[in-house]
């Protein structure tokens, strides 16, 4: 039954979603909304599983002495948070008490197996960040209004989280440069074609092309250019014809693949995602 029940649920939900796309009448339209709501509820509850797993693995990496010290500090911080939290049940004290109990149980559970590992510092940072954000949000940011501008939670979010996130995103520029360098080396005929196409696309997308365009005719529109000329026209041609054709071919393949995979899952032919052969 462990496999059959998920398979039945998958089949029923999958068929309802397909049917409601073609039959707008009740009950199918309501059923698909209900199933979507169920997914959101399960997802929201499951977030605890992930968060607790992260804390558990982090505690595991600290080693016994550091685990004791960390636990003591976290418990004191949580008590301060619980005392300082607003009286609202769900917005303040209750989640903190719940987390405190879960944390203590996990710390006790991990104590015997906890062994100091090379990345203990990252584990400690994770626990500290988690507890600080939790207390700042639930106890010292006005309960349900914790996301409002000017709260402690908002301050940490804007001053710590956002810059870190932006830094990661900004690193993408350097990764693009190194990947492009490798990809655009003309090692064979295909790579050489890629290099030539990339040259036109990149050159056609920068302000320099605007300047050069005034000096060259637009071979693609058959007229002397006023906005970009040959380079810009070549870039547009590469993007609108070979690139768009290739992208569409990939998209058609993806759509067929999704239909085929969905059918396999709904019919229970594909079951390895629920632990079956």
């Amino acid at each position: 039954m462990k496999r059959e029940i998920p398979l039945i649920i998958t089949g029923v939900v999958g068929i309802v979603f397909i049917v409601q796309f073609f039959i707008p009448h009740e009950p199918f339209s309501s059923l698909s909304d209900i199933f979507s709501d169920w997914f959101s509820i399960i997802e929201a509850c499951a977030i605890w599983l992930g968060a607790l797993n992260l804390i558990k693995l982090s505690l595991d990496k600290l080693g016994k002495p550091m685990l004791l010290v960390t636990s003591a500090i976290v418990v004191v911080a949580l008590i301060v948070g619980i005392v300082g939290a607003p009286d609202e049940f769900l917005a303040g004290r209750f989640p903190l008490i719940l987390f405190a109990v879960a944390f203590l149980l996990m710390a006790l559970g991990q104590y015997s197996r906890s062994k100091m590992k090379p990345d203990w510092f990252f584990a400690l940072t994770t626990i500290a960040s988690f507890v600080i954000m939790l207390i700042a949000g639930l106890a010292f940011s006005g309960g349900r209004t914790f996301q409002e501008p000017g709260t402690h939670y908002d301050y940490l979010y804007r001053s710590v989280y956002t810059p870190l996130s932006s830094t990661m995103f900004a690193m993408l520029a350097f990764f693009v440069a190194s990947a492009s360098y490798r990809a655009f080396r003309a090692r064979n005929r295909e790579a050489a074609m890629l290099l030539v196409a990339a040259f036109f696309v990149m050159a056609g997308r920068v302000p320099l092309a605007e300047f050069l365009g005034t000096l060259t005719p637009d071979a693609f529109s058959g007229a002397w250019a006023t906005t970009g000329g040959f380079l810009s026209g070549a870039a547009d041609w590469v993007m609108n014809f070979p690139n768009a054709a290739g992208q569409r071919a990939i998209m058609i393949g993806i759509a067929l693949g999704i239909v085929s995979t969905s059918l396999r899952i709904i019919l229970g032919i594909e079951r390895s995602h629920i632990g079956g052969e």
Partner: protein
Amino acid sequence: MTPPAPPANILADDAPNDAGGAIIVRWDKSPDEGAGLDNVGAYQLLRGRSPNGPFDTVGTMTAGMTEFNDGDVEDGIDYYYVVEVIALPSPDHPNVEPPVSISRPSQPARSSAQWIHMGRLNSLLAVVILASSILYFISKAKGGEKLFIRKIAGLEAVDEAVGRATEMGRKIFFIPGIQDMNNVQTIAGVTILGRVAKMAATYDAKLDVPVPRSLVMVAARETVKQAYLDAGRPDAYDEDMVHYLTDDQFGYAAGVDGMFVRQKPATIFYMGAFFAESLILAETGNSIGAIQIAGTAMPAQLPFFVAACDYTLIGEELFAASAYLSREPKQLGSLKGQDVGKFFILLFAIGGILLATFGVYNISHWFLVR
């Protein structure tokens, strides 16, 4: 102040292809909008159960709009609509209420639910043809017929990649994308994880699966556990080999990159839905010399994976991977069924090119899905 002339031709009708509870109202714009007095400020739609009223306001639209979908009606009841046109406020008398004029009431309209979405019949036909061909080839495969499936280099290399990690005594990382279990790419990724985990269990290689979603963690654990059982190595299974990091996109990328750099895995799989983090992950994996196999159906990320990984499963190959690796006839049959769909699309594409070449465009709407 003179009120603008009221709009004419108020037409109310049941909203098509819906579950009921909606009426679409259309009207001609006031003769004084953009011409005449040119003083239309807004339109207000009012609804009543009798042509003589009383009427309640159901919506206000800016000048220029001539249609409103009233989604707050009961099925089977006649409703009458009037459109009120409101003049622009006078700059000389800003505190004076602008004058209004009211149209004649519409004919009665009643909403109802439809059993078939007529705008999607073409899509239904395509799904039926595709599903039938897939089911046909599955039944043929079950009957023992040999089906030719072309070789996919990225999947042929899975065995070698797992073997390499075993020989080097280093980890295999499997990244199932950053979407949840309601994304079909994640499901495809998790099914491939099952095959990879079985190989890892057989070769006694170490597997590490950091995930960005709790539900993916739960599903992936079940998959990996079953793979280790199937491989006859339940003792080697540790549930912490599948662990949660964070839901945050760049937090996850940072966490995984850190693990790559510190643990230097021999093999990395990226199978699922990826966004901007794809290149951050793949370039870091490349820099530590790991053999990398990626698969995604996100067209924008494919060039990044092609540039940074040793093998890339492009679009449909990701969805074919589980069937391909399993070598089960039923699953391979479904791949063959897809080819029939491709054949039809190719025919339509060639037909469309020919028609467009000869300037025939008026059948293209047959292929629109509303």
